[in-house]
């Protein structure tokens, strides 16, 4: 009975996730596509839980179902403001013979992928044992955090750089669409006054708990970004005094600290980001704290689009 229900849950989840993706990509209404995509992220969070990837579920809940959704909705609104014509998705990129041969080609690709996945060795051990054996050297007891910040720290360093680069790219394009907004009103104002401190608190909690349980800098950074986005949405713009160098400082704080540590470890230990076991715990906490701040500010800035103070240019 238990296994039957368990299987039914998995089958229902997969059917739901695939049909949500399919409907999101096939519907003619773009707004519907975005809402379905948000629902897709929501269900995907449950899929990660079923696969025992709780860290991933946390990241998906914060980023996939949260920040990405807000970004897409804001972009949709800007698209409509720029050109009402542009939100209509006219069908017919490809039609007739082309569409059919493309469909056949995609089905062949799907069959090949399915076969490749099917024939993957099932007795593959992975790196779980190696990580577990070296976990006490890493300074943290959550294996995913150990991989992200210690064993493969260079991946994470580059990832934070990618985030910063994306923001620089977005800023250099200078998209500015003025949008008059109503005053937030008492209800929204009260909500943001209650939720913003709670979001910051939860971000700090996730950052702290990441050392020994699911959590960490990315999840915390995304929750922090949600606080920033909520403040922007309830009409609280960044004060002009903070929009100049303090904002830039917050953006590079994480990458700069991480990079500095990479250089120091290269000189002292002879290898990039080789953390000595007695210092690793503290160093990871420092990197994660600065990274959380930078990730939160970067994602909020990406939501804003243009650098603050230049909207009216």
């Amino acid at each position, binding site marked *: 009975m238990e296994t039957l229900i368990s299987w039914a849950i998995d089958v229902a989840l997969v059917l739901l996730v695939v049909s949500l993706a399919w409907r999101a990509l096939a519907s003619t209404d773009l707004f519907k596509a975005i809402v379905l995509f948000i629902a897709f992220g929501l269900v995907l969070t449950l899929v990660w839980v079923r696969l025992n990837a709780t860290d991933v579920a946390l990241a998906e809940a914060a980023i996939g179902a949260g920040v990405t959704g807000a970004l897409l909705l804001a972009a949709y609104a800007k698209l409509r403001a720029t050109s009402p014509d542009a939100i209509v998705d006219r069908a017919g990129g490809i039609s007739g013979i082309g569409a059919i041969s493309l469909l056949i080609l995609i089905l062949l690709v799907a069959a090949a992928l399915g076969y490749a996945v099917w024939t993957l060795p099932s007795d593959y051990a992975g790196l779980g044992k190696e990580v577990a054996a070296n976990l006490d050297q890493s300074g943290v007891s959550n294996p995913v955090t150990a991989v992200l910040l210690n064993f493969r720290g260079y991946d994470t360093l580059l990832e934070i750089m990618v985030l910063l680069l994306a923001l620089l790219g977005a800023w250099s394009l200078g998209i500015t669409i003025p949008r008059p907004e109503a005053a937030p009103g008492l*209800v929204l104002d*009260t*909500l943001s006054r209650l*939720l913003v401190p709670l979001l910051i608190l939860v971000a700090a909690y996730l950052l702290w708990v990441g050392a020994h349980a699911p959590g960490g800098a990315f999840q915390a950074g995304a929750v922090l970004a949600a606080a920033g986005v909520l403040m922007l949405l309830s009409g609280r713009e960044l004060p002009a005094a903070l929009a100049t160098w303090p904002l830039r400082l917050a953006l590079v704080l994480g990458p700069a600290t991480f990079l500095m540590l990479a250089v120091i470890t290269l000189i002292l230990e002879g290898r990039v980001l080789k953390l000595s076991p007695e210092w690793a715990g503290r160093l990871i906490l420092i990197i994660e704290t600065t990274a959380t701040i930078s990730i939160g500010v970067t994602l909020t800035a990406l939501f804003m689009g243009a650098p603050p103070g230049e909207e009216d240019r």
Partner: protein
Amino acid sequence: MTTSDYLSAALLTTGGLFFLAGTFGLLRFPDVFTRLHALTKADNVGLGLTVAGLALQVDSWAVAGKLLLIWLLALLAGATVSYLIAQGALRLGIRPWKR
């Protein structure tokens, strides 16, 4: 099973029924305002009963507190978001359904 287990099971099942009722209302009600009404039943009562049922099972006060926090958060968010959506719908020019 003890008495609290039976109580918990009853609460959880009732909570599930409220989710069903909410979903059913979402499908059957005629306009966005009445559907908001259905939504908040699932949001507030369905999740509330689920949280109550689970709180009887957990052994630590901290976990029960976290469950309560999540429910309070859902209450706050549900009330606010429903208000904002209803207000926005009125501005969109949607008139409330009349029999």
